[in-house]
């Protein structure tokens, strides 16, 4: 168990990186608190697997340091770091039984057979695989194989961190949910630091207490699922989280007020932008209300999608597309409507970054 600190981390897969574009990880400064459940969220190719492999020691970073508590482990190989990692595709040792698979990391470290037995039994119970212990691991179904991979990660009681690299990719949808809640439960029982890498926002938001969102080798926001949803620090987070993502509308800033197609938009609070210029207004579809007669921005409905519990309305106003999520009654395609933004949830973004702050609050 340890607190993990990444300091000034940069990594490039090229031998002689020139510009920022050559770096898979641009500049990472991050601290993972001991015992936390973290998710590392980002689109494919954003550098999250690279970051994971650097923490586990499979990769040595081009620049920067990794500290486990106060110990510098940057140069240590994975076996010396006492970490565990679960991969996208289940890795199991085909010729061994489930028991031997789970015992493998302990036996490699020369642990006493009595302790091995006790640990394996305990882990098997947690994962509900006790009945399979004497089965050959190659005969298991993919989800059970992945459970065994997880079990091998959790079997050492003193691991500093358990990392999951998109572990549910090959699992059937109906089992994903089960394994995900199993993981959450495991975290509560073993209290080890866990880092869960995924590009699936549902997985990230259900698993983690803290979500780290990455894009193009940079961290754009760290926060609780609620933070990410309500106050995206960057329009990328707004787009990436939520379905559909945040509406981002072009606007002009004049004298501290935002104008969308000439109409003033009331923001949540004061703008942090000094001077006039182009910026963007961000509003989640959940906070856009649609009416036929009320006030707001005039728009016409392009289409309406019924996705079960609610309806997603796509409207066009001033050549921009705006989504709204409605419960119950919705207009029909082609209707002229008025859109109203909930003021406390209307944010201003400048160059992608959040630029407004709530009334009386900090940015």
């Amino acid at each position: 168990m340890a607190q993990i600190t990444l300091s000034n981390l940069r990594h490039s897969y090229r031998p002689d990186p020139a510009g920022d574009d050559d770096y898979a990880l641009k500049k990472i400064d991050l601290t993972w608190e001991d015992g936390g459940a973290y998710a590392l969220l980002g689109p494919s190719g954003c550098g999250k697997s690279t970051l994971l492999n650097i923490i586990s020691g499979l990769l040595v970073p081009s620049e920067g340091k990794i500290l486990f508590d106060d110990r510098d482990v940057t140069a240590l190989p994975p076996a010396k770091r006492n970490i565990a990692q679960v991969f996208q595709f289940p890795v199991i040792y085909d010729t061994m039984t489930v028991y031997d698979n789970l015992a493998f990391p302990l036996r490699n470290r020369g642990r006493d057979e009595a302790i091995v037995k006790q640990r394996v039994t305990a882990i098997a119970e947690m994962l509900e695989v006790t009945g399979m212990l004497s089965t050959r691991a190659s005969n298991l179904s993919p989800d059970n194989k992945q459970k065994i991979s997880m079990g091998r990660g959790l079997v050492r009681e003193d691991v500093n961190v358990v990392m999951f690299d998109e572990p549910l990719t090959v699992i059937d949808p109906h089992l994903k949910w089960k394994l995900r809640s199993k993981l959450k439960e495991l975290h509560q029982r073993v209290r080890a630091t866990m880092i869960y890498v995924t590009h699936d926002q549902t997985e990230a938001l259900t698993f983690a207490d803290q979500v780290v969102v990455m894009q193009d080798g940079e961290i754009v926001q760290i926060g609780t699922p609620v933070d990410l949803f309500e106050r995206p620090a960057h329009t990328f987070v707004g787009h990436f989280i939520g379905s559909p993502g945040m509406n981002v509308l072009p606007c002009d800033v004049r004298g501290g007020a935002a104008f969308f197609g000439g109409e003033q938009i009331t923001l949540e609070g004061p703008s942090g932008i000094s001077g006039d210029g182009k910026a963007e207004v961000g509003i989640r579809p959940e906070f856009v209300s649609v009416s036929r007669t009320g006030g707001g921005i005039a728009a016409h409905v392009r289409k309406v999608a019924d996705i079960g519990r609610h309806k997603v309305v796509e409207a066009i106003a001033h050549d921009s597309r705006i989504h709204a999520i409605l419960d119950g009654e919705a207009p029909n395609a082609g209707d002229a409507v008025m859109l109203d933004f909930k003021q406390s949830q209307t944010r201003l973004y400048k160059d992608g970054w959040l630029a407004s702050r709530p009334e009386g609050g900090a940015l």
Partner: protein
Amino acid sequence: MKKLNQRAWLFVTPVLLLVAFNALIPMMTVVNYSVQETFGDNLFFWQGIDWFEQVLTSERFHKALGRQFLFTFLILIIEVPLGVAIALAMPRQGFWVPFCLVTMALPMLIPWNVVGAMWNIFTLPDIGLLGYFMNHTLGISYDMTQNPLAAWVTIVIMDVWHWTSLVVLLAYAGLVSIPNAYYQAAEIDGASNWAVFRYIQLPKMKTVLTIAILLRFMDSFNIYTEPFVLTGGGPGNSTTLLSIDLVKIALGQFDLGPAAAMSLIYFAITLLASWLFYTLMTMNDNKS
């Protein structure tokens, strides 16, 4: 119930004909010879199982069979571990991969009788590179036309040179198919190099190694051309393997009956041994 469509047989007929003409009919000719005696003029006399008894009880057959098993045993015991070792040492990516693969494949592309001739000249004591070097530079007496041990060493090394590549290439194919995550997981699990080989590489290579061992068994058990060109079965009968002996009986002595009986016994042994190998190597696969 759905009516069965017998026309499906039409699609199988070409294969049946092909197999009949290239395997079944020639083989039945051999069966035919094996139970008859002929003195020429296309006159045949029923002989029953006499030829089989004669072959099975003949000391000459026992000795040739013994030599054949010894040869195949040596080939497998050397080529399989050596092939796996070379495959493990080969680079998995980069500039040297095609170079290694082509170099490995080269010996296999040389026709069998050319291999025999090459090694024959190579080992000649007076003019061959190896033969001259051994005898005149190192002063070690080495002449495979005189010394049975030298002849054996030569045919074994020749086959190792010619066919280890097959094991290498198959084992290599097995190795490169292992996803990187396995090695990473093993590293994190603290596995030693030996454990990685024993629990990851070897199991993943098992299928291709089964094929490699079967192929090397069959080919070395049926080997004819190379040792025939190299030693002609000599000195004396010391390298007369089963196939060489068979050709001597069939075409040298023209004893068609005993030769046919011997062919069938030879075939039965190859088949039985291949089946045993395969069964033993795959019997753990479906165990739970």
